[in-house]
């Protein structure tokens, strides 16, 4: 059986929680383990947050302090999920500023925004928590992150190894 869903939302931090919960609900009927659920939610959260803060540089809503003087980019983030049997494919896309050097951006600890308390671990988490990760980006055009994960295998892959 194939099932597909797509959500498109404003690139503001209020939607980070919404996006990961929507994806979690979409796969809930597969009875994923708690770990699988946490993995998927973390990966979605990383990709969506990257689109908001790096792609569109939308920092309004950062914390709770209202900062009305900050211009909000009208950009949208698109999250698309395709479920084929137990294989989940997630696509997170933005039409923001894009990434100059994707290979470099994906290195653990690499960040262009250390002043925002970013740690450069986002892509490393997506890679660790999903079975497959692909990033396509063009400067000035946007970024698409594609992730794949098999759900319901029940196996716990430890990260220590």
């Amino acid at each position, binding site marked *: 059986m194939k099932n597909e869903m797509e959500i498109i939302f404003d690139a503001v*931090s209020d939607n980070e*929680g919404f996006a*990961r919960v929507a994806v979690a609900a979409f796969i809930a009927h597969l009875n994923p383990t708690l770990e699988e659920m946490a993995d998927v939610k973390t990966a979605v959260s990383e990709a969506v*947050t990257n689109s908001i803060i790096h792609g569109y540089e939308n920092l309004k809503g950062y914390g709770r302090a209202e900062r009305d003087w900050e211009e909000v980019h009208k950009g949208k983030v698109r999250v698309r999920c395709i479920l084929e049997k137990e294989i989940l494919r997630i696509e997170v896309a933005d039409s923001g500023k894009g990434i100059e050097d994707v290979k470099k951006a994906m290195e653990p600890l690499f960040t262009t925004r250390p002043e925002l308390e*970013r*740690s450069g*671990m986002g892509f490393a988490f997506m890679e660790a928590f999903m079975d497959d990760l692909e990033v396509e980006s063009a400067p000035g055009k946007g970024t698409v992150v594609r992730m794949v994960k098999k759900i319901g295998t029940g196996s716990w892959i430890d990260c220590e190894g």
Partner: protein
Amino acid sequence: MDFQIIDNCLMIRLPEEIDHHEAGFICETADRYLLREDVRNVVFDFERTRFMDSSGIGIIMGRYRKISCFGGRVYAIHVDRQIERIFKLSGLNKVVEILNMPESLQGMDSVAESY
């Protein structure tokens, strides 16, 4: 979210979900407390936390950098399996000590109720 100073420790009771949306508020508030010179160590309490992404790493690393130069230390309590996994993946477990509620911190449970 709750912030409390016990002895020379800043106790931060983290929210249910730690993401970029929550991070700014936690950092800003924590840093206001850290300006007080009687605060030496920071304890992050994950008891209520059910979700954390890389934003949590930034919060903890940032506070670590601020206090470690004065000899302060960072501790984490009530760390569940998923959060511990994130700690290990990011190398955070090298700078943060995960405590399993030892004697010295036992009193905090009762104090925690009141804040």
